[in-house]
Each structure stands twice: as structure tokens, then as C-alpha cells.
């Protein structure tokens, strides 16, 4: 933030952005706030309810269960995707034609519409017609993700690892490429071990991109909806019903607008709070 000139007219530059985003963000947000404090029995008749829905949501076991599943899911996929992404980025070729081939193939899952990802994994993992389902059952393990909660979790996590690990790989790879060859030569002359090179040269260079990778993976996995919804429909039972799936069930399925709106706001605030923490850490890292 240094070397910038003060210029109040800069507001004119950001005005179109603010107008468009505000139209999309503030009006729906106010609608949600409006619902969250009222009760309706249809016909557009609303009654003031105060913080009743917030209390109800905060005390409901259903919300706690979805939140718990959501946090577990996010924690697991971060614990798998981040180290795996770093490892693959480290093993990638540094130059040559294979670099382009690797990058294009690895980026492919990122550009598939999310419901296609879910549908694709559904037919890939089905025990009767899917390759993965057949293979696992062929190993003698009883596997059916439409009926067994553990298999459903395993499949959902594997799908997310498949879908998003490349993001971490690409970012780490970009960070690694910014290291001049001279650093590696110096390390070689000093007789540094592979671990020392990683710890003192590669990891510090990846710090910034890794923070972004973790931030993006955190946000997106916390908001995940389409892929698990198409894959498992939140089941078997409620075992893979994450926050967004639960929210849509309440809002559009049961049309309980008040509780759904209150839950939306609580959900949004949790994401906001955690992202603010990440963002502050990231900006602090950038200033150093």
C-alpha cells in the first residue's frame, strides 16, 4: 500500500463495480435479513418475530449437526489436498513440453460444471456400473456409497480431492517456478539435503501462494453444494448433508423462510469471520 497517491476521484473508477455488486449483494441480503425476523403463512403476510429464528437455529440440533459435518469435511479435504498438492508440485518437471501437458491435464477438472462433476462421480462410483465401485468391490471390500455412510464420505472426499487438488498444485508450482536456479545451485554447493532445500528455499517461496490456495479451498469447500448434492443427495440419511444442502432443503424444500434466512445469515457470518482471519494473515504476509 505504499507509493500510492491520494485521489478522491478514484471513487468514480470503482463506482460501476460498487453499483453492480451492491445490486446483487445488498438487495438480496436485505431480503434475507427481512425474512429472518418475520413469520409468514403465505399470501405475503408477515409478522414480526424478532430474534426468534436466530435462537431457534442456534439451538437446533439439526444446525449443529450440519455445521459439524461441514467443518469435518472442510478440515479433511484441507488436510489431504494441501500436502498432496505441494508434493505433486514439487515432483513436476521444471521445463520442457511435459510441463504444458501436465498443466492442461491437471487444470481440466477445474473447468467441468459442478453438477457434471457430481454426475460423473456418481456413475464412476456406482457399485454395479461404475469403474471405481467395481474395483473396490473387486478387492473384496463391500462398498456402496448410496447406502453406507462411510462409503458416501469416502466418495465425496475422493471427488473433492479429484476436483480441487489441481488448484493447490498449480499455485504451488507457480510459486516454485519463481525460484531462481542460482538458489538450487547454491544449495547443492553447500550440500543441503532435500528437506533443507524444501524447508528453507521452497516453502518460504510458496508461502504466499499457499495462503491463497488455503483461503480459496476453505471458502469453496465451506460453500460446497452442487457436487455432493448430485453425488449423494445428502444421504444416506443426512450423513453427507452439508450446510448449503441443508439450507436449500429448508428454504426451497420446506419453504420455512424465517429459519432458512436466519441460518443463511449465521452461515454467512461464519464464512466471513473465518475469511477475515485468513485475509488479515495474508495481507500481513504480503507486507513483510
Amino acid at each position, binding site marked *: 500500500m505504499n507509493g500510492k497517491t491520494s485521489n478522491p476521484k478514484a471513487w468514480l*473508477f470503482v463506482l460501476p463495480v460498487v453499483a453492480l455488486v451492491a445490486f446483487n449483494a445488498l438487495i438480496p441480503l436485505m431480503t434475507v435479513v427481512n425474512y429472518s425476523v418475520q413469520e409468514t403463512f403465505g399470501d405475503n403476510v408477515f409478522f414480526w418475530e424478532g430474534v426468534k429464528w436466530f435462537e431457534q437455529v442456534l439451538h437446533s440440533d439439526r444446525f449443529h449437526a450440519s455445521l459439524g459435518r461441514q467443518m469435518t469435511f472442510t478440515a479433511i479435504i484441507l488436510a489431504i489436498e494441501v500436502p498432496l498438492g505441494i508434493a*505433486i508440485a514439487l515432483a513436476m518437471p521444471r521445463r520442457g513440453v511435459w510441463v504444458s501437458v*501436465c498443466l492442461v491435464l491437471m487444470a481440466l477438472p477445474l473447468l467441468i460444471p459442478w453438477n457434471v462433476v457430481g454426475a460423473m462421480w456418481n456413475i464412476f462410483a456406482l457399485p454395479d456400473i461404475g*469403474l471405481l465401485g467395481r474395483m473396490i468391490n473387486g478387492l473384496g471390500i463391500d462398498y456402496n456409497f448410496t447406502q453406507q455412510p462411510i462409503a458416501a464420505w469416502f466418495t465425496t472426499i475422493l471427488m473433492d480431492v479429484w476436483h480441487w487438488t489441481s488448484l493447490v498444485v498449480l499455485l504451488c508450482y507457480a510459486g516454485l517456478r519463481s525460484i531462481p536456479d542460482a538458489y538450487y545451485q547454491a544449495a547443492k554447493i553447500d550440500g543441503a539435503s532435500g528437506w533443507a532445500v524444501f524447508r528453507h528455499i521452497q516453502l518460504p517461496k510458496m508461502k504466499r501462494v499457499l495462503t491463497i490456495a488455503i483461503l480459496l479451498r476453505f471458502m469453496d469447500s465451506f460453500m460446497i*453444494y452442487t457436487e455432493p448434492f448430485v453425488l449423494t443427495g445428502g444421504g444416506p440419511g443426512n450423513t453427507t448433508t452439508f450446510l448449503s444442502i441443508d439450507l436449500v432443503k429448508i428454504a426451497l424444500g420446506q419453504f420455512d423462510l424465517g429459519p432458512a434466512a436466519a441460518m443463511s445469515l449465521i452461515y454467512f457470518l461464519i*464464512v466471513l469471520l473465518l475469511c477475515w482471519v485468513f485475509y488479515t494473515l495474508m495481507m500481513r504476509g504480503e507486507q513483510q
Partner: protein
Amino acid sequence: MTMAKVKWLAPTLYIVFLMLPIYWLLNMSFKTTNEILNTFSLWPNEFTTDNYVKIFTDPTWYNGYFNSLTYVIINTVISVTVALPAAYAFSRFRFLGDKHLFFWLLTNRMAPPAVFALPFFQLYSAVGLFDTPIAVALAHCLFNIPLAVWILEGFMSGVPKQLDETAYVDGYSFWRFFIRIFLPTIAAGIGVAMFFCFMFSWVELLLAKTLTSVAAKPIAATMTRTASTAGYELGLLAAAGTLTIVPGAFVIYFVRNYIAKGFALGRV
């Protein structure tokens, strides 16, 4: 020596893992639904292109692709156009509330679409845009504009301020400088920002589905409908799914050397 051998193994295995489900989809798209359900085989025994023929000849199918591409392109153009001056302001100037505004923009990238699905439906119905590509294009601005601003700001901050100052000394007006000199300098950044807007608009379904019914239905939603009404026409579904991968694969090729820089929001 052994180290070097093991080293290429990890990316190779990873890529094989990535390709397996895609191969399975491709494999199914060349089978009849009957064969998919009754025989398990690693490649199509009765190779057929009927599924693809059906998609390319049936308007309810191919219109889905047009609808998707329409709102994705409108969204990309709007997002990048408005993000350019804003990103310039963030990268060059200090102004009242700049840091808060930047964070507020980012919060919209963090807003779970599920939170906004119902209010969006009501908002766009109220302004009479429901079931038009414009509605989806505008709704996707919610997360694409912040992203474009973030990426472009990163690229612009990498351009030394001396460039701006030299241009003014040479007598360039601001807009002439901005369009003739500055934009070509960050052309790669603009390409990357467009790619990311394209990508996130292309893969999103929840809002796109909520804001359309018949006329502007995206391909991804066409797929879900067909799956539920016509039983499971798996072969057709697989072919439609395979075709949704094509535009992505096409654009990745052009930005392959910048894609990581884009994910790093221009900050590598």
C-alpha cells in the same frame, strides 16, 4: 538416479487418477443406455454416436449450450470491463474507504450461493429479467467482479508507476494512456481475468438454475431435468457431460502458461 525415476511417477499417477472418471464418462457416452445398464465393459462393445447425434439435432439439448455460452460471455465482458478501472484505482490510488471497499468486494466472493438463491429469484423476477441470460450474467457478477478486480489489481500492481508518470509527461491524457499504453501492458492479466470469469460462470449451476426456467435454461440444468423425467438415459447424460468439458479444455490451452498466476490472483 532412483530419485529421478520416482519423481515423474507422482504426477503421472495423479494425472491417471484425474483421467479415470473422465474416461469413464467418455466410455459411457459411446454406449447405449441398455449396454451401460446390462454389461460392464472397459470400452464400448456396441460403439454408437447416437447420443451425440441426438444432442446436436434436438433443440432442447443444443439450446442449453447456447444459453450457457451466452450468459457466460455476457458475464465475462461485463465483469472484466467494469473491473479494469476499479482495479486500476485500487492499485494506484488511496481514497476514502479503499481498504474496506476491497474487503467488502471480497466478501461477495465468499457468500455461499445457497444463501442468495431465493432472494435472487425474487429480485430478478421483480425487475422482469427472470429466465433471461442477462439475469444469470448479472447474478454471476456477484462473485466474478470481485475475482476480476482481485486478479487485475495483482497484475496492475506489478507494473511500475513510472510508466504512468512518463506517459503524462509525454502529454498523454488519462484515458488515452489507459487504453493505448496501460491495457496492452497488462494484456496477459486481462486474458487471465477473462478466463477465470468464464470458468466460474461456466461451472456454477445453483444460481443459473434458480434464475431460469425454459427460455434461458443452461445446459447443466437441462441435464438434471432429463435425468429425472426420462428415467436415467445414462448414455445421453454422459454425452452431454462430455460436451460440457470441451469449452473448458479449449480455453485452458490458451492460458496454460498464465493459469497459475491467475489462481494466485496475479501475485506470483
